[in-house]
């Protein structure tokens, strides 16, 4: 094997040196797991689109690899006493066609977002909620007017990319797709896009932050994780996103590649349903007769179910060690994390006692649902959880289905216990409070992702108060109080934080990111 390897390397070396041109101009090939649905940066708010947009476009504020808010095109910002957010733009920034960046370009971009892009399957205008007016005070100064305090506004601007007013005026999504309007300020220029196949950039030599080492970057879509891995091992790609967890051990021994991991703000959790009645077809007494009430109304049942899960097994066996136990719904190191608080103890005896005290000494029958094609290791996780709950005395059935079907049934509020994941992309506790935990209220836009229909008015009050609290420390304290209510209530049963892994050639390094973005700007030659 070693001899073949050496011969192959020699042969490859000989072949490569014949094609000498490629080694001089550094080209980078990156393989991604999911598809871009559009390259117009205002068309579709979706993780993959947003991260790839950062090659060509930039926003006023950015999130660092560790999840902290940083200046982007805006070098500084401050709140004025009348509730206006004032931004000072960086000087010397030019678009790819040479025109300088002006505050009017920012106003144009935001207005385009507020007006909405036609046919958008997911718009960005929610991020500008609360903004009542915009003004370009000078070429480098911008005012965003609000009528109520919006402490999260700078964070919300992270995914709002600035396009050139000169090229963007009157341009529709199609002009971006053909490249005509794809003029940004980013470190790369747009070259070509074949939907679902590849996205190609070339270096912007005049980038204000310094030219990148890669002259050409090709983002290729390879959804099959085995082929993605094979292409890295064969040397056909230089960087791959999403290395499958099962292969990690084997890959650590390969000396042609290196692995880079980061914990993320995405966690897997079990969601108990509060809205299903005792006649639900997914739980019953062990003999099949209906229960007296929905068992998840009783906090002792929810707590017992959480206590019965040994999360170390889920981390080590199901995810091959590639996960971090989620002890709360905010990860350590970000605001909102409550030090020393752990809602994930493992105590089977206590769980049995609580379940008996709640009136289910013999347990009950339960069906647990999940989607099998969107969540890492979802099926294995529910199987393990099901077994753990069997030890508790429940009679568990697992039902898995494609995400399209799962999403529909979950949305119809049919499922009283399901496994899902939640990704808090901006890293602020509001991302965990507003949509998944607040009481569902369509008009107010709250609880959109709260499909268990958990409801606690005290949590709602605290969350709303924190939303308008401008002082950072006070806001964090309010958010922590609200979160603690959800934790004590076992509104959700968290399991693990996802760890995302990138693989690169041995002579490259990748700066792993909390937001899971795959960027050419994070790839550097390793010294």
């Amino acid at each position, binding site marked *: 094997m070693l001899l*073949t390897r050496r011969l*192959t390397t020699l*042969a*490859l070396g000989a072949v490569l040196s014949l094609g000498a041109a490629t080694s001089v101009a550094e080209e980078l090939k990156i*393989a991604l797991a999911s*598809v871009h*649905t*559009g390259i117009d940066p205002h*068309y*579709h*708010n*979706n*993780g993959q689109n947003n991260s790839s947009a950062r090659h060509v476009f930039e926003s006023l504020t950015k999130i660092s690899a560790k999840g902290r808010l940083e200046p982007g095109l805006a070098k500084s910002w401050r709140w004025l006493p009348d509730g206006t957010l004032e931004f000072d733009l960086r000087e010397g920034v030019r678009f790819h066609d040479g025109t300088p960046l002006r505050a009017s370009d920012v106003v144009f971009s935001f207005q385009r977002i507020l007006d*909405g892009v036609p*046919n*958008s*399957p*997911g*718009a960005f*205008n*929610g991020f500008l909620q609360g903004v009542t007016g915009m003004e370009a005070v000078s070429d480098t100064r911008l005012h965003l007017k609000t009528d109520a305090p919006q402490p999260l506004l700078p964070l919300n601007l992270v995914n709002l990319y600035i396009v050139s007013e000169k090229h963007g005026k009157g341009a529709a*999504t199609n002009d971006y797709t053909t490249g005509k309007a794809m003029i940004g300020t980013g470190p790369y220029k747009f070259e070509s896009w*074949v*939907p*679902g*196949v*590849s996205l190609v950039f070339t270096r912007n030599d005049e980038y204000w932050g310094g030219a990148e080492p890669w002259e050409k970057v090709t983002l*290729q*879509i*390879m*959804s*099959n994780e*085995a*082929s*993605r891995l*094979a*292409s890295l*091992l*064969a*040397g*056909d*790609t230089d960087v791959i996103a999403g290395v499958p967890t099962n292969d990690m051990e084997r890959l650590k021994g390969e000396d042609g590649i290196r692995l880079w991991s980061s914990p993320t703000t995405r966690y897997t959790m079990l969601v108990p349903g509060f809205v299903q009645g005792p006649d639900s077809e997914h739980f019953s007494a062990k003999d099949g007769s209906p229960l007296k009430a929905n068992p998840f109304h009783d906090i002792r049942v929810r707590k017992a179910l959480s206590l019965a899960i040994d999360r170390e097994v889920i981390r080590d066996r199901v995810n091959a060690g590639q996960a971090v136990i989620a002890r709360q719904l905010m990860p350590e190191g970000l605001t909102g994390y409550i030090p020393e608080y752990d809602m994930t103890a493992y105590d089977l005896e206590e769980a049995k006692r609580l379940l008996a005290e709640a009136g289910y000494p013999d347990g009950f029958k339960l069906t647990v649902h999940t989607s099998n*094609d969107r969540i890492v290791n979802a099926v294995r996780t529910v199987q393990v959880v099901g077994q753990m709950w069997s030890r508790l005395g429940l009679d568990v059935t697992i039902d898995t289905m*494609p*995400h*399209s*079907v799962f*999403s*529909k049934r979950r*949305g119809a509020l049919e499922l009283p216990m399901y496994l899902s994941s*939640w*990704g*808090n*992309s901006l890293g602020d506790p509001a*991302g965990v409070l507003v*949509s998944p935990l607040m009481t569902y209220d*369509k008009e107010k*836009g709250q609880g*959109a*992702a709260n499909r268990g229909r958990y409801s606690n008015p005290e949590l709602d009050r605290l969350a709303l108060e924190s939303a308008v609290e401008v002082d950072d420390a006070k806001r964090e304290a309010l958010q922590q109080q609200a979160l603690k209510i959800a934790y004590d209530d076992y509104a959700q049963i968290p399991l693990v934080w996802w760890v995302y892994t990138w693989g690169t050639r041995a002579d490259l390094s990748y700066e792993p990111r909390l937001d899971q973005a795959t960027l050419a700007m994070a790839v550097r030659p390793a010294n």
Partner: protein
Amino acid sequence: MSAFLIRRLLQAAIVLMAMSMIAFIGIFAVGDPVDMLINPEASEADAAAARANLGLDQPLWKQYTTFVGNALQGDLGDSFVFAIPATTLIAQRLPATLELTLVAMVLALVIGFPLGVYAGLNPDTMAARSIMTGSILGFSLPSFWVGLMFIMVFSVILGWLPSTGRGPTTEVFGIETSLLNWEGLSHILLPALNLALLKMALIIRLTRAGLREVMASDYIKFARAKGLPYRRVVWVHALKNILIPIITVLGLELGDLLAGSIITEAVFAWPGIGQLVVNSINLLDRPVVVAYMLVIVALFVFINLTVDIVYSLIDPRIRLAADRA
């Protein structure tokens, strides 16, 4: 002949209509396309706006009639996911699949046919027996596994061939093809081989079985008794008579290959319509799924028609139904 053609076209139109209805109702029954596309952190107002944008807030029958109205004018709708016309997406990806299909078919024929003929003419030799056993492997090994094995052996371990993707293309009469340069050919070899294995196995077995049957028949015995050279007996008399089942199967298999060779395209990241369609089904991208089904049905109809016409050319005893009068 013309009555035959017209009847066929009418049948095709009915099948197309039925197909589009099935696709519409099917996707509607599975779930909500907007749910699949929208960022989970978005609000309900955003989801409702997206639904209105895509026309999904209309009742189903209204969506269908709008679709039919547009379809008759040649517009099969814009993809929900990419906002690009569905026909454009398919047209972009179709050449890649056509290429792969063509090369796979050629490989299957060029390798399978001679092997099958040899096995049919010399059935009791070691070589023939190994060919037949080999052909069993051809259709029992799952193509997913075989594809990954090819990549592991030829790309990762030996490093002879590239592992994934399509090679550089050159434009010929407005169509991009990767067959005209060595690098392109090296990219297409493994996926085409992967696809061809099953067809090869089929052709080998069909050819052998057909030859065994035909070589024992009276007219062959008579031809040999007459003193015709062996070559002529086999290539002119025997083979012509076994062609009909082979062409039928080839026609069906060609349609099957065109319908997307989904697994091979997924494993080799080949940018064809198979990958497009699986992605679209998972994301409930209805316009693309419907457009794809219509295109495939049209292709199948065309292939079957061609096969029928070729029959009548090969076998003078066969007359197309309408001619009988």
